[in-house]
């Protein structure tokens, strides 16, 4: 008798998922079934993330484009963009991170390296120097006079490298460890159940 009641209280707050408190949201704010990386679910965090992520991503693109004569650039933009993904991971756990990633981190890294490398080496073909800038100005209907320069492509490559790197670190040190820990816990729970069942 006591055994049944013991199992009953242990199950909902089981070692795998944290207990749900009054903070837990009733609606779904994120795109997957949420099990946060740390602590219980919180409506405040989930709503804030839902609202912030798009604007953070837009801001990161602004930093990338503004970088040539104002503070910013590919590195800063990439860090800000990867923070958007880290936010989703903190609020929603590893499934949310996987759902939010456009490509595998390795592919992002490789794409960024290729883009930056090719842009850096491109002027060499026409006998120029490494990293030489190719500029082109154009009159656009809405924006007025706009200058396109090859460093934007280089910086975009840096942007992709930074995002890919941060995502692969989060995937390796956060999500994968979380998954492994869950497995270990499930194994321990099974073993405990078996041991408990055995002697009786």
């Amino acid at each position, binding site marked *: 008798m006591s055994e049944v009641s013991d199992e009953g209280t242990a199950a909902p707050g089981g070692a795998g998922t944290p207990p749900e408190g009054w903070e837990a949201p009733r609606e779904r704010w994120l795109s997957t079934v949420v099990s946060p990386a740390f602590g219980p679910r919180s409506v405040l965090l989930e709503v804030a993330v839902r609202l912030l992520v798009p604007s953070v991503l837009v801001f990161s693109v602004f930093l990338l484009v503004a970088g040539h004569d104002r503070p910013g650039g590919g590195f800063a933009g990439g860090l800000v963009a990867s923070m958007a993904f880290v936010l989703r991971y903190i609020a929603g756990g590893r499934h949310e991170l996987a759902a939010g990633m456009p490509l595998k981190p390795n592919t992002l890294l*490789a794409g960024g390296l*290729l883009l930056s*490398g090719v842009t850096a080496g491109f002027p060499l073909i026409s006998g120029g120097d*490494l990293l030489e800038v190719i500029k082109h100005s154009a009159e656009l209907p809405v924006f007025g006079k706009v200058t396109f320069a090859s460093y934007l492509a280089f910086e975009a490559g840096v942007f992709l490298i930074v995002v890919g790197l941060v995502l692969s670190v989060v995937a390796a040190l956060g999500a994968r460890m979380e998954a492994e820990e869950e497995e270990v816990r499930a194994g321990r729970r099974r073993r405990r159940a078996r041991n408990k069942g055995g002697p009786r």
Partner: protein
Amino acid sequence: MSTLLAIPFLVPVLGAAAALLLRSYRRGQQAVAVVTLALVVLAAAALVRRTADGTVLTSQGGGWPAPLGITIAADPLTALLLLVSSVVLLVVLLYAIGQDTAGLSRATPAVFHPIYLVLTAGVCLSFLAGDLFNLFVGFEIMLTASYALITQAPTRARVRASMIYTVVSLTSSILFLTGIALVYGVTGTVNLADIAVRLGGAPDALRTVLALLFLVVFGIKAAIVPMHFWLPDSYPVALTRISAIFAALLTKVAVYAVIRTQTLLFARDDIAPVIMWLAIATMIVGILGALVQDDVNRIMSFALVSHIGFMLFGLALGSVAGLAGVIVYLVHHIVVQAALFLVNGLIRQYVGHTSLRALRGLTAISPVLALLFFLPAMSLAGLPPMSGFVAKVALFQAGAQAGGWLAWTGVAAGVATSLLTLMAIFRVWVRAFWGVPLPDVVEAGERLQGRRSGGALLMAGATGAMVALGLALAAASGPLTALAFTAAEDLISGQAYLQAVLGGAS
């Protein structure tokens, strides 16, 4: 010309990206890596041909003139080291491909190839960098790749060793960055040629402090005694292909950086005696360590530390002959050290370990293996027909020319170290190769007869190629020495370098 200078680091970066994209096609990755390294070898060979008469090639990144642009420069020393390093990288890659094809390795090739190419880019950028900060970047690319490589196929011992390795390297990197900040504070520039000009006006004491700081920074990475303790702990436990590259190249890149900074930036008389004492200590302590080890890989690691001392000795002499000796020694040591570590890898592959306690009679089961060990080992000890002999004679002659009791002490220490190296090698030879084979060695030999695949042949072939390269160096010692003298004259006068970097701009 800019293209030629950019290929050695740009192409490996692109190759790494391509290999990362191809991670599910092992054949494709291998092809990309081989083609990339072959291109680097070709570019390096072209650079050697162009710089053979002492010209310095430069390129300014971004098209800005010298102190502002990102300077990339290749003098004869850089070109020669690029060529040797890229050939060694290519041969070790072939060994690794053989090992993967035979299914004998636990490393994940999907990660190995991209990181290996990134390491190549870092090594090449370090050689070519024309400013201090780019040198730092090249070092960091190389080291970051090496942190990932040393933990391939992780075991408890490898993770422990990599912790030591990473912490020590990071400490040295922090000091390096501090040094760059101090140099920038004194001179207001990070361009090597520009620093060389402006540091001339700085107070003597300040220059000595900076020179010592950079000696410590690169001394940690080059494993100069008393800063060598991390090397024999970390290199031997890594996978063969990786410890071979680490032993052959990483410490030599640091030695190159010592040579570049101490000849170009700082006045030679400032700390030459300090370098000489460090050289003597490195030679003696290293080889005494090698004599008491029980594992072939650890013996070779201590011998590696010891022989860094020879290069410092030539640098401390500060003469053209001394530096030429150092350059010949660098080239010889890169090839021989890589060959020895590959042979140790073959022993580990055949028998399962490299401990002297449980090895006997390897000659009986594989005479070819014995020969492959014997030739580079004799070269390391410096016996006459080998490249090691040429390099050592060049150094000792330079020492005798320089005269003075300190130089003679250095020569004496060098001769003693050579004899002790011979003793350490004979210890390995007598205990591991001679005698009646132990039962499990015989068993390993029988297993070897039964299993002969293309991959295993490629491994043995790559090792043979590396040994042959060492012999070729001995045969080509005439042209090599001539090239080394040209490079050394460039280094001592420094004028060609300054002219090429700064003169073209103004």
